[in-house]
């Protein structure tokens, strides 16, 4: 695993050597603030919590995380550097993990930079900071889930736009699978346990409990499993497609 860190460092260096990092962080901060204050009615509610802030994270991530993830492998394959990377004494697992962790840390940094809103809510009232911390953790884990999906989709193609679109669609399915409009479709003809299973795949269901401050081990395990599954899929897809 020694080279995971080496890959991670190189990836992060690339983010900050291009406008990607700055554009992403600025857009992320503006959008999350806009959602919180306008759509979430942060002031009008007169409740000292960050629920209006976290409620919109799944929708924000739906587009922004694939935008980060789409380049992970598609760009390497397009420019041919994947050949350089994978002929160094780095295992594919180290490469997949290093790239994922770099992007995940980067999203974590963007998330961390929303701290002024936490300061604001603490000045305006007396929120439950434990709940806020839990929600931050949940948000980051959910971003990890979206990112693992996007990374895997990025390995499918050398075209970043295609990678982006497929990632958004797959993420969207994972996001929505808990909503009644999706479940109703299945309810008519699938047995209840399977419908429950589909509902349980939803990012929304697992995120909403964490964001209310309920850290259930099952929700944590869910996100860890989702990330693990898609990273394994990423490794397999990479092996199959790298030379195309």
């Amino acid at each position, binding site marked *: 695993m020694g080279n995971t860190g080496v890959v991670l*460092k190189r990836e992060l*260096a690339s983010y900050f*050597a291009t406008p990607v990092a700055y554009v992403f962080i600025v857009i992320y901060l503006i959008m999350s603030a806009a959602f919180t204050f306008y759509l979430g009615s942060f002031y009008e509610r007169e409740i000292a919590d960050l629920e209006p802030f976290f409620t919109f994270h799944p929708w924000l991530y739906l587009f922004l995380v694939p935008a980060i993830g789409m380049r992970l492998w598609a760009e390497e394959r397009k420019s*041919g*550097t994947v050949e350089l990377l*994978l*002929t160094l*004494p780095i295992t594919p697992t180290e490469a997949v993990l290093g790239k994922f962790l770099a992007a995940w840390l980067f999203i974590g940094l963007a998330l961390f930079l929303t701290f002024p809103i936490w300061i604001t809510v603490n000045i305006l009232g007396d929120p439950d900071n434990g709940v806020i911390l839990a929600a931050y953790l949940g948000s980051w884990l959910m971003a990890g889930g979206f990112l693992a999906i996007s990374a895997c989709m990025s390995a499918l193609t050398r075209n970043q736009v295609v990678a982006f679109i497929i990632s958004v669609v797959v993420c969207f399915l994972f996001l929505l699978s808990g909503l009644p409009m999706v479940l109703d479709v299945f309810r008519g003809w699938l047995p209840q346990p399977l419908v429950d299973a589909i509902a349980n795949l939803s990012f929304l269901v697992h995120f909403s409990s964490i964001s209310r401050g309920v850290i259930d081990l099952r929700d944590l395990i869910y996100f860890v499993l989702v990330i693990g599954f898609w990273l394994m899929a990423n490794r397999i897809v990479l092996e199959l497609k790298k*030379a195309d």
Partner: protein
Amino acid sequence: MLEVKSLTRRFGSLMAVDHLSFQVEPGTVLGFLGPNGAGKSTTMKMLTGFLAPSGGTAAVFGHDICTDALAARRKMGYLPEGAPLYGELSVSRFLRFVAEARGFRGDEVGRRVGEVIERLSLEEVLGQTIETLSKGFKRRVGLAQAILHDPPVLILDEPTDGLDPNQKHEVRRLIREMAPRKIIVVSTHILEEVDALCSRAMIIARGRLLADDSPAGLLARSRYHNAVTLVMDDLEQAASRLGELPESREVEVRRGRLTVFPASRGNLFEAVMGVVQQEGWQVEQMQLEAGRLDEVFRSITGQEAA
């Protein structure tokens, strides 16, 4: 030692590399020659562990590329086709990444990077972003990352492709410098390169090994080997006179030049010389041909296509 054993790669129904076997000893510059799509790059990709072989294997100083892949890769430096690099990084940042990925830590990273920078004269572009570099500098950075860990085996896929004559010369000089201590495998479709660079040449077409010889050995297969070419006024008369020589097999007049091909006996050059003096011809040029690689290449790979 590099030992390739029945290495095979299929892409669907296409045999890209077809049971290729050979061995290379240190001190050899091996040239892979072949038309585009002959399987040169695919072979190199398998040797360096990027592509898994469909069959067969290879060993680099005893490390099998399939079962002991990481150890085998540590013994190799690789310049992929087109020398892909992380364009957004600076030269020094990129080389540091490669050094770390090669397992160097601490001061050793700076020392190794410093060495290749000096070796390839990259000082002036150190802080520059790679994508802003000229093609020649990019190629030098690509070579720098390949030799950074001083590997005993170097695999270079078309190292001079797309460079201007000065840059080509520079890259060849570098390869020749390293040649005595290493196994260097170079692929090319530039024939002059084989003569300028290689101590051994393999001609590959459709994934199969068609010839494996020294450059001189390949030249000796040419019908032009030891032929004599003349440039003078009355070519027709000279052609009929020289065609009568017992040392000549055939005479050819093309584009104002007369070429006499040798029969298997005697010294053709001396015989032609004798006739020229005897007849008192005014000869502008007279040349003993070493052989023409392009002709050998065409005849070997052309047979295959037919």
